[in-house]
C-alpha cells in the first residue's frame, strides 16, 4: 500500500512516516502544500494523510483540488484544529476521516487501515480469497487454517494482490505500491518476491493462487477446482 503523508512539522512527519512504513505502507512524505499537491497529482496512492495548516497551499485547498480532479483517493486529515466547525469543513471539503492532533499512532494506523479497506469495498479487516485468509488488523495470514509467516515486504505484496483479487496487476503497479522509490531494484525484484510468496503459500491443497499474466504482471485468484 502506498500512502502520501503531507505534514510540515518535521519531528511528527518523520515519526508518522516511520510508523506507517513499519506497518507495511510505502510512504511518500512531503513538508509543504505545493510539494504534497504535486505528489498527489502525479502518483497513485491508496491513502493520503493530510495536514491542514501547511506552508504554501493549505491542506483544504489540496483536498478540494484533488476532488475537483475526480481523484477519489481516501484522505485522512490530521490537524490541530479541533473545533466542530473545522472538522465539518474538513469533511465537507472531501476528507474521508478527520484526526485531531495529538493522537495515538495506533489509532492513526487503524483509521488508515479502515480507509484502505473501505476503498476496496471490504466490510471487515479479514480478506479471504479461497482458503487464503488475511487479517489486516492482526497481520496474520493463514491458508487452509495453516498460519503463514511473512516478512513485511511479502505481507505488503500479498495485501496488495489480495485487495485486487481477480484483477491483473502490472509489475509497475506492484513496484510503485509496495516498494520505496529509493530502494532501487527493478521488476525482477517483484518477480523474486512473488517467487518467495508462492513458496510460502504452497500449503493446504497446494493449488497456485498467484497466476502469472504473461508480459504484464500477476493476478491472485481462487484456484479453479
Amino acid at each position, binding site marked *: 500500500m502506498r500512502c502520501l503523508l503531507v505534514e510540515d512539522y518535521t519531528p*511528527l512527519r518523520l515519526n*508518522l512516516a516511520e510508523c506507517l512504513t513499519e506497518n507495511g505502507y510505502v510512504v511518500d512524505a512531503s513538508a509543504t502544500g505545493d510539494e504534497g499537491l504535486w505528489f498527489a497529482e502525479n502518483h497513485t496512492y491508496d491513502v493520503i494523510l493530510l495536514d491542514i495548516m501547511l506552508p504554501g497551499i493549505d491542506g483544504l485547498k489540496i483536498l478540494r483540488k484533488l476532488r475537483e480532479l475526480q481523484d477519489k483517493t481516501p484522505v485522512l486529515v490530521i490537524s490541530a484544529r479541533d473545533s466542530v466547525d473545522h472538522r465539518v469543513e474538513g469533511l465537507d471539503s472531501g476528507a474521508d476521516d478527520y484526526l485531531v492532533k495529538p493522537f495515538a499512532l495506533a489509532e492513526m494506523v487503524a483509521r488508515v487501515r479502515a480507509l484502505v479497506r473501505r476503498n476496496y469495498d471490504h466490510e471487515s479487516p479479514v480478506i479471504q480469497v479461497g482458503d487464503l485468509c488475511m487479517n489486516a488488523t492482526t497481520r496474520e495470514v493463514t491458508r487452509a487454517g495453516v498460519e503463514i509467516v511473512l516478512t513485511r515486504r511479502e505481507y505488503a505484496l500479498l495485501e496488495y494482490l489480495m485487495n485486487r483479487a481477480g484483477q491483473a496487476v502490472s509489475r509497475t503497479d506492484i513496484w510503485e505500491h509496495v516498494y520505496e522509490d529509493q530502494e532501487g531494484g527493478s521488476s525482477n525484484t517483484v518477480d523474486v518476491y512473488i517467487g518467495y510468496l508462492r513458496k510460502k503459500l504452497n500449503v493446504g491443497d497446494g493449488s497456485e493462487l498467484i497466476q502469472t499474466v504473461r508480459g504484464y504482471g500477476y493476478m491472485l485468484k481462487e484456484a479453479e477446482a
Partner: protein
Amino acid sequence: MRLRLLVGTGLFVTVVLLISQVMIYQSIAQMLRKEIRMQLLESASILAKSAELETDKVVYEWQEALESNADASIAGLFQFWDLKTGVGVGSPALEGASLEIFYGELNQPIIQPITLYDGRPALAVGLKLLPFLDAGTLGEMEKIGKFLKPEDFPQVLVCARETATLNNKLGRMKWHLFRAGSATLLTIWLSILAITMWTMKPIRELERRFEERAKDDSGPLPEIPDDLPVELRGLTEAFNRTLKRAEAARDRERDFAMHAAHELRTPIAGIQATLEQALLRDRPADDLRDRIGNALLVTEGMRGTIQSLMKLARVRGRIEKVEIAAFDPRVLVKEMVEIERPRFRDRKLELSEDIIGPSKGFASDAQLLKIVVATLLDNVVRHAPEGTDADIRLELLDGMLLQISNACRGLKAEEMTRLFEPFQRGALAGGEGAGLGLSLAKEIAGLLGGELKMDLKDDRVTVELHLPSLKD
C-alpha cells in the same frame, strides 16, 4: 423609549390642555358674571332715579306707572326700602316676596350673592340712596311752606338677578370643555402613537437586522435603513464602526488562540509520536537516546514558542514595559550580526554591512530592539538560499532606518501581507519555527513608535525597520 415618549407627551399635553381649559372657563365665567354685575349696576342706577321725594312722602315712579296703567309691566327683581319707615316695596316679579336687604355707604353699591325667596341663587346689588327732588316739587313746597329734605328719607334699593341659569350654562360649558379636551387629548395621543410607530419603524427594522445577525454573529454588519431618522444615523454608524472594530479584534484573538493551540498541539503530537515509536519495540540504547533527544528538541521548540507567545501577548496588551535609554544602534546591530555570523557562514551567506550617520542622540529600548534585529537576522539565515548574499544597511540620520535584504526564491507577493500575522509562514519556511517572529517584531516596532515593512522585488526581499529616537 416609545412608552416614555407616549407617557411624557401625554402628560405634558394633558397638563397644558387642562390649564388652558381652566383658563378659558374662568375667563368666560368671569366675563358673564361681570356682565351680570354691569347689568345690575345699570338697573340699580336707573331704578335709583325712580325714587322721588314728593311734598309729603317718597313715591316710586315705577309703582305709579303700574297703578296708572294696568297694561304696564315692570320686569326684574328689585325692592325699595324706606329706611325711615322701614317699609319695603317690591317689584311685581317678586310676587309679594321680599329680597334680602343689604347696603353700604350712601351711593356706594355693593354686589353680593344672595338666595332668592324661592331658594334660587342670585346676584344682587344693594344701594343706599336719597330720593330725587325735582324743581316742580320744590316749587310746590315753597307754596305750601313745607320743606322736606331728601336726606331725611334715605332709601335702600336691592336689585337682584338670578344666577341659576348662568350656573347651568357654565356647568354645560364645563362639560363641553371636558369633552372637547378629552377628544383633543385622545386625538393628540393617537397622533403621537401613530407618529411614534411610524418613526420607530426603521429603528425596529434595524433592531430586527441586528437580531438576525446576532443569531450566527458573522457576516457583514446590518445595513442602516434609508428611512432611519437622521438623528440616529450618526449614532448607528458610530455603533457599526465600533462593532466592526470589536469583531475584528475578536476574530484576531480567536485566530490567535486557534493558531496558538495549533502550534502547541502539533509539537505535542510530535513528542507523542516520537515516544510511541521509541517504545514500540526493543531498540538499541543509542537509538532510544536519539529518539528521546529528538523529543527534547521538540520541547525546546515548544518552550521558544511559548516564550514568543507570552512576549507577543505582553507587547500586544501594552503590558511590556518600554525602558528608554540612549545607546548606539551601530554597536547593537554589530553585536547581533556577530552572534549570527557563524550561522551565516554555515549557510555560505555572504554578508555586507553599510552604516551611515552619527550615533549620538538615539534613544529607545535596546532590549526590545535586540529582539527585532535578532528576528530579522534569523529570518535571513533560515530563508535565504544557500550561497547567496545578504545586505544590512543602517542609517542614523533621522531616527533609525535598518534595511536587511536577501535573496528569497519562491516567496509569493500575495504572502507578503500575511507574513506579519502570527503563525504565518512562507512556503519556504519548511515547517520550522512557529511563525511568530515577524509578528512579534512588527508589534515591538509599533510599541517603539516605529514601523516594520517588507518588500519583494525580483526574488529579493527587503525588510525595513524605521524607529524614531524617543526622549530619555
